[in-house]
């Protein structure tokens, strides 16, 4: 409990001093996280502090819509059944609301991440997981063709001069259903 001294000032107890020190340490970690820095060091104490930063969210950065807004990515699938009949324009987005769409959009963005750009196999794995969802929804399909499309809005100046934005295909991959053999 803090007390008032004779002059009317608040005196700070040892416990309060400790709590304030912890709070200041926490805010220091928040500052480091805000500028994309990890707590330095490669020893158990540093590892513990780094884990605390994750647990408390102090490692977060705050660059929303900064410094720019990139392009938007979406996927469209074609499915082909055993008879060769093609169904086009299949989407994974359902009418499940904006919160779900934001999350799915976050997954689509992984296709254009640095890791996916550098590792075609990883990009293919991302596509395969979505193709599996298409196969589940369309049991008749034996093949699914993924079209990854990007939308990059033109500038205001370009728009005034008549340019228009559109979805451009940036990646395509075909996935085949693998039939599970019945166990003997």
């Amino acid at each position, binding site marked *: 409990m803090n007390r008032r001294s004779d002059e009317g000032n608040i005196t700070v107890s040892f416990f309060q001093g400790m709590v304030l020190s912890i709070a200041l340490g926490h*805010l220091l970690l928040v500052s480091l996280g805000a500028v994309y820095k990890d707590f330095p060091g490669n020893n158990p104490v540093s590892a513990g502090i780094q884990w605390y930063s994750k647990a408390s969210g102090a490692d977060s950065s705050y660059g929303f819509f900064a410094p720019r807004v990139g392009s938007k990515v979406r996927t469209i699938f074609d499915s082909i059944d055993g008879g060769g009949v093609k169904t086009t324009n299949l989407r994974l987005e359902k009418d499940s609301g904006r919160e779900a769409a934001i999350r799915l959009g976050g997954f689509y963005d992984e296709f254009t991440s640095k890791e996916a750009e550098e590792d075609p196999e990883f990009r293919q794995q991302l596509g395969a997981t979505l193709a599996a969802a298409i196969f589940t929804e369309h049991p008749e399909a034996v093949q699914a063709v993924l079209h990854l499309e990007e939308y990059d809005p033109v500038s205001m100046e370009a728009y005034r001069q008549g340019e228009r934005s559109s979805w451009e295909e940036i990646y395509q991959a075909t996935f085949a259903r693998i039939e599970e053999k019945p166990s003997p």
Partner: protein
Amino acid sequence: MNHRAMSEVSRHIFTGRFAALQEFCFKPASAEPLGFFRLGLSAVLLLQAWLLYPVFLEFSSAAGLVQREVARALVDPSLPTLNAAAGLLISWGLSEASALYFLGSCYVLSLGALLLGRGARCWALLAWYLHWCLVNTGYSGAYGADMYAHIFLFYLIWLPAGDAYVLGRWAKPVWSWQACLGIRVLQVHMGLSYLVSGVEKASGEMWWNGEILWRSLNMPGYSFMDFHWLAAYPLLPTLLGLATLVIEIGYGLAMSYGRTRRWWVVATCGMHLGIAVFLRLPIFGLLMCVPTLALFREKTLQH
């Protein structure tokens, strides 16, 4: 001025500043802002849980949209998930879906209890842990709203947010130095996050010429109507972009002064509500109004 007089002056300045710092951090304050913060946060997160309920399994189960192997590659392996707890429930005979629904229900229950306020710290601990696990289980596609929710729930474990607006003793907030320090830490955190966010935005040309709003509002999936007409009035998105920079960079400073505080609360909440409506980010927009409304009202600053 001789040496003795100078040291006397500096002693007065130092002790005066130290006293001000002591008062800033430890002068007993009402827990009412923290209670309001708890109410707002849990209400918004309950709304988010309700909105995500229909697609919960699509994002969290092994049979969902993102296969577990791929999800593992996208999530930090050192972070906790619900897999162990779900695995235990599955070993007791539950299906994966039932186990995940049970754990999701525990999260919703903890938020409901947090809203009511009794035993707030314990419920905050449970809500924080389950929220963290849910975000790392499967592929959650966590974004800004989840990040702030994680930060705010962690604070609620430590702050006396259950000392106000509690069922049964609604109108009797407790006064304590812990409430004062907690409010100050949250205020500094918010000021810092807005400052960094604003400076990072200002480093990009798009925030100075209106292109950022033009692009965001015309990005498919974001806008609820056609905003291409903005190209004919470039001054409007330019001014809105500049206003965002001013609000965010000036947040900490403007909230420190009584004359500007009220205007900044209105401007900041207006900005977030604008994001909620025009960029169709209602959870993020509402969530970000909560700390500003809770921590910077006139009542909050009165000891």
